[in-house]
């Protein structure tokens, strides 16, 4: 059977949570997320009972990724303030952080910058929960982690193709796997019981015009990705800025000055975030 048959790829990606490289905490967390009865309280307990997770969560909350005014000192305070979806996303980000750093140099920095940019853009567009956009920005390329974990050799081939032909990595992925990392990410997010909005944003961040329920949120991550690559923060598998989707561009309708301000704040925040997260 062909290893790169689309069904084989999908089932490999859906099996990722069983890999020995996946840390136990993440496995436990995924079990909890699977259960629809899991409450905010359960998640609060889960965090507080693990001092390492507690530290990581508090560090992440107080970083420019989320940009809360004032500091958050306790898990309880965080859980009350942030609500279930954001806390879930926060925990996922904390757990995926090590994985991301392990598989691709620069992917974490790319994701971090996208998280900050997405939040700033969400604020500009007056979205009610800009923190949700932080999480989406942070996790949007999780499909790359999935593909590398299961098909490292092939993924390296895709990266060299992108490099040689000077094409975006997602086109090279598509040539080789018949899907790109957005689809891989969507499969993984579905299997991992991510919140609905997150699944859709991950799946459509390179074709935001197809997003049905979260077109603005998806367009935000789409454009954030382009700005971050354009600015040159991090590395996401290629050296090429992909074209912006026209529907997304029109929908967001940002002025040149809006973008200028976002870049300026991103720049300052990256200085601070780098200190926190990039050793």
């Amino acid at each position, binding site marked *: 059977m062909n290893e790169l048959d689309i069904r084989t790829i999908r089932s490999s990606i859906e099996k990722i949570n069983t890999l020995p490289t996946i840390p136990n905490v993440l496995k436990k967390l995924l079990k909890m997320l699977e259960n629809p009865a899991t409450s905010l309280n359960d998640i609060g307990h889960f965090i507080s009972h693990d001092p390492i997770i507690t530290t990581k969560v508090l560090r992440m909350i107080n970083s420019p990724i989320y940009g809360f005014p004032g*500091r958050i000192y306790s898990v309880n305070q965080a859980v009350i303030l942030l609500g279930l979806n954001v806390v879930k996303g926060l925990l996922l980000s904390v757990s995926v952080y090590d994985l991301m750093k392990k598989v691709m140099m620069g992917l974490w920095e790319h994701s971090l910058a996208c998280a900050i940019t997405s939040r700033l853009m969400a604020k500009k567009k007056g979205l009610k929960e800009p923190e949700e956009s932080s999480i989406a920005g942070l996790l949007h390329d999780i499909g790359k982690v999935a593909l590398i974990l299961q098909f490292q050799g092939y993924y390296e081939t895709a990266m060299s193709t992108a490099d040689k032909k000077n094409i975006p990595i997602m086109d090279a992925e598509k040539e080789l796997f018949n899907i790109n990392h957005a689809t891989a990410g969507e499969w993984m997010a579905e299997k991992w019981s991510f919140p609905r909005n997150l699944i859709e944003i991950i799946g459509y961040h390179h074709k935001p015009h197809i997003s049905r329920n979260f077109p603005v949120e998806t367009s935000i991550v789409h454009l954030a990705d382009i700005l971050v690559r354009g600015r*040159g923060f991090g590395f996401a598998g290629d050296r090429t*800025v992909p074209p912006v989707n026209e529907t997304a561009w029109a929908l967001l309708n940002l002025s040149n000055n809006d973008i200028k301000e976002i870049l300026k704040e991103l720049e*300052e925040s990256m*200085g601070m975030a780098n200190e926190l997260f990039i050793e």
Partner: protein
Amino acid sequence: MPKITVDRLVVGMCLAEPITNEHGLVLINEGIELTEALIEKIKNLRIESVKIKGDSKPEETKEEMILALEERFKYAISYPHMDTIKKIIKEHIERLYE
């Protein structure tokens, strides 16, 4: 000017912006060199981060940065709006060196 979180402050750093209370009154002026006591005071104010003086210019030269930018945009530059996006980023990068 780098913005850093309060827990990373070290004696000897210099404030690049004054620290104010919620009404905008200056509590600690810019240019002040931080002492142990001042850092303690800042921590008690429960602010997230402060701007400190220092070189935050990128490691690459401006020319290198611009060249890399041109390279990154080569593939998509003929697509709609990409020229605008590139121009905004280019101006942004140039401002980093002012």
